[in-house]
């Protein structure tokens, strides 16, 4: 049997499930909205405006858009210089380039002095089939070590819009993992409202507690539905602010007796949400049955995204199967 032929559209496929509602370029549109009465907001791109939805801001405010070219170190240090002068720069590129190539510039030029730079980066975790050069599978591990940095991993279009407003209102450096293009829309059904630093229970349940961020919250909600067929009652605690963690909510939820805690993340199992939650429990002397779903500590394959999500265990089907195996 010959392998199924890959199409480009599959390589850069939307993470939306079949038939799911989506909203186009939520970050770009939200930033245009925020910037209307905030003349201090400027946008910077490292030749990826089109793929970070910043082109929408560039069209609306050409005089406040800065094309820095393929130069991520310059991107971040220039943003630092602008922030020093009272501007609020939104700097965008891919997560791999911001984290791997420009780390020292974030750490020293931005974070030490708590400069008001917003770093918004596309292709977090495994959200492209282009292989390790584009898959930021360890961005959280890298960035969690930066003091003063707030980290947001939003789940859907609604949350990205609200988080964009919240970032602009917050003083200090923020890193947001960006979903771009046609982004799934689901949290409106839960009456959800993003609050910086807050984890929220989207669904109650007595057998399993999913702790998740980013697109894995969408998968956890789907898995929770699927588990109903097996009479498994699963709760979902969405934790979009990865740093600082909402420690009080997490501890209270983990401490509830009788539930298997499953931390699900679109990130390598090293240094992301899973380890952060485990370390929180450890520091507080809390023991619970805990399991982790995340990407393996490997250079991942290139290919069609749905296939890769299945292969590495973060598709809804694989997430559901793993949980059933642990019960």
């Amino acid at each position, binding site marked *: 049997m010959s392998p199924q032929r890959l199409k480009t559209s599959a390589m850069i496929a939307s993470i939306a499930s079949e038939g799911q509602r989506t909203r186009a370029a939520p970050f770009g549109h939200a930033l245009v909205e925020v910037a209307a009465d905030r003349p201090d907001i400027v946008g910077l791109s490292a030749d990826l405006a089109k793929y970070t939805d910043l082109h929408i801001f560039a069209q609306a405010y050409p005089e406040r858009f800065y094309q820095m*070219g393929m130069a991520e170190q310059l991107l971040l240090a*220039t943003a630092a*210089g602008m922030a020093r002068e009272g501007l609020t720069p939104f700097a965008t590129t891919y997560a791999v380039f911001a984290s791997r190539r420009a780390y020292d*510039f974030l750490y020293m030029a931005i974070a030490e002095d708590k400069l008001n730079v917003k770093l918004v980066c596309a292709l977090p975790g495994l959200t492209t089939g282009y292989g390790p050069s584009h898959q930021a599978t360890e961005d959280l591990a890298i960035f969690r070590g930066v003091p003063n940095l707030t980290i947001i991993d939003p789940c859907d279009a609604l949350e990205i819009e609200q988080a964009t407003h919240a970032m602009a209102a917050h003083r200090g450096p923020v890193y947001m993992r960006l979903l771009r293009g046609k982004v799934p829309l689901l949290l409106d059904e839960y009456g959800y409202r993003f609050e910086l630093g807050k984890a929220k229970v989207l669904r109650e349940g007595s057998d399993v507690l999913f702790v998740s961020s980013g697109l894995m919250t969408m998968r956890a909600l789907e898995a929770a539905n699927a588990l109903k067929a097996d009479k498994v009652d699963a709760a979902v605690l969405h934790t979009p602010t990865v740093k600082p963690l909402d420690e009080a909510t997490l501890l209270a939820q983990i401490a509830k007796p009788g539930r298997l805690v499953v931390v699900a993340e679109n990130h390598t199992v090293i240094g992301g949400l899973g380890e952060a939650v485990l370390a929180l429990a450890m520091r507080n002397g809390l023991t619970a049955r805990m399991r982790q779903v995340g990407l393996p500590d490997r250079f991942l394959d290139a290919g069609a995204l749905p296939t890769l999500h299945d292969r590495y265990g973060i598709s809804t089907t694989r997430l559901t199967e793993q949980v059933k195996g642990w019960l």
Partner: protein
Amino acid sequence: MALNNMQLPLDLAGLKEMARVNRLDTARMFMAAGNGHFGSCYSCTEIITTLYFGLMRVDAARPEWPDRDRFVMGKGHAAPTVYSALIRRGFMPEGWMDEYETAVGVKLMTHPSRRYQPGIDTSQGSLGHGLSIGVGMALAAKLQKRDYNTYVLMGDGETNEGSVWEAAASAAKFELGNLTAIIDCNRLSVDGATDEVMPMEPFPDKWRAFGWDVIRLDGHDLPALLDAMTPRRDGQPRPPRMIIADTVKGRGVSFMENVRGWHADTITATQYALVKRELEVTL
């Protein structure tokens, strides 16, 4: 003693004297610590002195004055030169010099930090950041229609960093006439002669090719520095300005001049006495 604004700018004789004071202050700080980056500081003494006492619009009473000229110390390890200038301009008390690096919690350390030091415009220490940060400050001035100038001092070794050239291209693209960069060409870095560690010359050709206005001068020549670094406040879009300053590492102290080991070294009381005697006599 700090100068007040009425006494500024200094004339040539005043600048020459202030350069001598700056070298003595630097040695005083290093004596307090027992060591320091003598060579790196003494090559840029005249550059810093000319900026802070001859050209830059700053006011100790308003360290964060939005219209002040900005100074970015790319080669952060030579910060004591800047500390002396800020102390003599009244931004910081003189007594801080004698606490330099003597204990955790004192205000003055090897690298400049905005967390502790009034008058410092950017925290530095990681080489290769300064010029890009300066680009951001100069862009902000244009957007906010302010006429301050931004000065960035880099070491010649620092230009090995690729980020310097990212910034070089962008400053020309954005026509940052309000940005002046200075390369302190003292020709020595940690591991040896800069042209052996990584040859970067000819600097003028490289910077011109990147679209900058370039002047090469003797980095200890006060009149030349005054002329070359005069602020440009007309807001006209034009090429950024690059000053290639040929300097002598350890300038002013005979046993330190052009000696690689004095990039950073310990100092004894006997050596300190020698430094003081030479600076009293020779400059």
